[in-house]
Structures are given as C-alpha cells and as structure tokens.
C-alpha cells in the first residue's frame, strides 16, 4: 500500500511519527502513531534516594 510518513511530528513536546496507509482508491486504510523514544525513567529511578526524585523526574518533560 502507498504510505505517507509524517516524521517527526512537530510543535509539541516529544518524539513521534505517523504512518498513513492509503488503499488503491487513495483513501486512508489505517494510520499508526509511533513513539520512537524511550529513556527508562521507570527503571533508573530505582535505587535513587527518595529526596532525589523531585530533581530527577521533572526531566521527564521540561515543558
């Protein structure tokens, strides 16, 4: 199928790309949003002292 990629998505915080699949009539058959990033806060915060968390997790989103 023909595919239109919007990569990257813009004017928001974060990374993302959208793949739009078109059928033979040129209509949208399906659309997928993918997030091509992962930093792992859920894991690397483990083992840090609790008082450090308010200094670490704001860096999930600086906006």
């Amino acid at each position, binding site marked *: *199928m023909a*595919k239109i990629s*919007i*990569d*990257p*998505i*813009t*004017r*928001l*915080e*974060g*990374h993302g790309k959208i*793949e739009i*699949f078109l059928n033979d009539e040129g209509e949208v*058959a*399906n659309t*997928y949003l*993918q997030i*091509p*990033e*992962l*930093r*792992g806060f*859920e*894991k*690397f*915060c*483990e*083992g*840090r*002292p609790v*008082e*450090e968390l308010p*200094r*670490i997790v*704001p*860096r*999930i*989103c*600086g*906006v």
Partner: protein
Amino acid sequence: MAKPKLALYWAAACGGCDVAVLDTNEKILEIAAFGDIVFWPIALDFKYHHVRAMEDKSIDLCLFNGAIRSTEQEEIAKLLRAKSKVLVAFGACACFGGIPGLANFTTREEILQRVYKEAPSNSNPEGTLPQVKTKVPEGELDLPDLFESVQTLEQVVPVEYFIPGCPPPSDLIVKVVDLYVTGKMPPVGSIVASDKTCCDECDRVKEEKKVARFYRPHEITTDPKKCLLEQGIICCGPATRGGCGMRCIKANMPCRGCFGPPAGVADQGAKMLSAIASIYQGDTPEAVNKMLDEVVDPAGTFYRFGLPDSMLKRKKVAKVQGK
C-alpha cells in the same frame, strides 16, 4: 547576504532546553531576525526529509540537545553533523549524558522489562515489547532500536562547542547568541561557561570545610546563608563548573552538578567523592563506616548528570550487546 541558517534538535531529551531558548523572551525575535531557523521540531514543521535534502554544511549553527541512546538519535546526530558548519552540544544531556544517562546504571533489557511488563500501572497482558520491525495488515512499521548505553553527543560525532546546564540558563543562551552573532565565539572545543567551580560563584558564607556528619534533607533544617556542604548537606558545587548563577543554591537546594566537571577534571563523580571523603571528620574505622552509611547513593549522586561522560561510562554488565 543570505541570513545564517539555524537548526535546533532534541535527541533523548525532555524539551527543557528548547523551552530555555524560548525563555530568552524578546531575544528569540532577535534570533529569528538574525537567522533563518530551518529545523526545530518543538516550534516549526520541518521534517527529517527537509534536512536530508539540505546541502552539506548549509546549516551555519545547530544547537543539539539530548543524549544519544537510539539508532534514530545517532542517525540524526550524524545527519546534522554533516549538514552543519558549527554543531553545539546544548545542555547537560548532549554534553555529559544528563538525566537519561542514569540509564547506564541498568541495561536495555531491564528497561524494556520494567517499562512494558513489570510496571504496576501497565495493561499489557500479552507482554508485547516494541520491535524494530512490526508487520501490520497494511504493510510494515519500523522503530529505531535502543542501544545498551547512553552516549554523549561528542561520543558519536565531533562537536565544536558545549553549553552545559539542565537547562542552560536563558541568560547564558543570550550571551552565547551575542558571541556568535558578533563573531566572538571562544576557541573551538570550548565549554561556554565559567572556568571556575560553582563554589567560586556561590555567595554563601564559607568557613571551614569540616563535616561531622552528612544529613539527608529531612534530617536537618539548613541555614540559608551558610555553605550547604559545611552544614552536612551533600552539595556538588566543588566539582561542578560555574556559570549558572547558582540558581539551585539560591533556592536552598544543593548543587547536583548539571554544568559538568570544572576545567581540568576528567571525572566529575570521582572528584566529588574525593572532596566528600576529604572534608569528613573521622579517623577511625567506625567513623569511616558512619560516613559510608550517611552517603547513601554515591554513584547516583556524584554522577547525577554525567554518568556517560565519566571514565567508566556505565555500570559493568555481564554481556553488553552492541553499544
């Protein structure tokens, strides 16, 4: 004469550096008048294919924030390096690895397991993990692959300048823009901040560095006029480059080192550890054990923003697949 072309990009980042640029307020209008911004995902709608179509070295100045931990981030770093005359590692993540660099205490596999399977708030009964290639009825989707480790920008491509900070303070950004516009940038390879430590610009009262015990924040109320380290709060000022205006200290919070190591220091965490051990008072094995109990997370605290930039770069794992 054509206006200079500017680009800003984020890799493993949070958006804070881009917001810091926007926080320069009226200066942003000057920047927009001075140059043409040809790529800036947070603010403008240019796509990767626009960048790929540019001629090499056609971007005059590229501010690159965020650490490198995926194949896409490495690819765009290399792309922007090829298209840019001057590439700046912007912010603590690009300079030293930053907070995402803490992932170097763990592994790619542990992260994937935690995020997609183990986390209590997950709803993922089939235990699906992200794949580089995924077949869907309409065709195929692809995602970048995660590296085992987080790297700084300089570990992936050559970099001309470094602007540290999490985020770089807006007044430092303004200063750098002025230097660039007037052609007065420091020598290539410079870290554009102070050459001294955070302690040097800290205006708190400093007497003698002799610490009888280290406190965790809930154990003590600190005097806002005196040096935090002298009061027993671990502050990374002695091993951190200055130039941030001591904004954390002013908020009564200890420095955590987001400006990276000062000039002449290869490993910020090791230097900070050395300072902590030096100032602690106690010559007996009991005193040493007491100190060990009081410094709860040395690696995490001393390498808060700079683990990928440290000499060991990451925690040793049994088998490192790829990078």
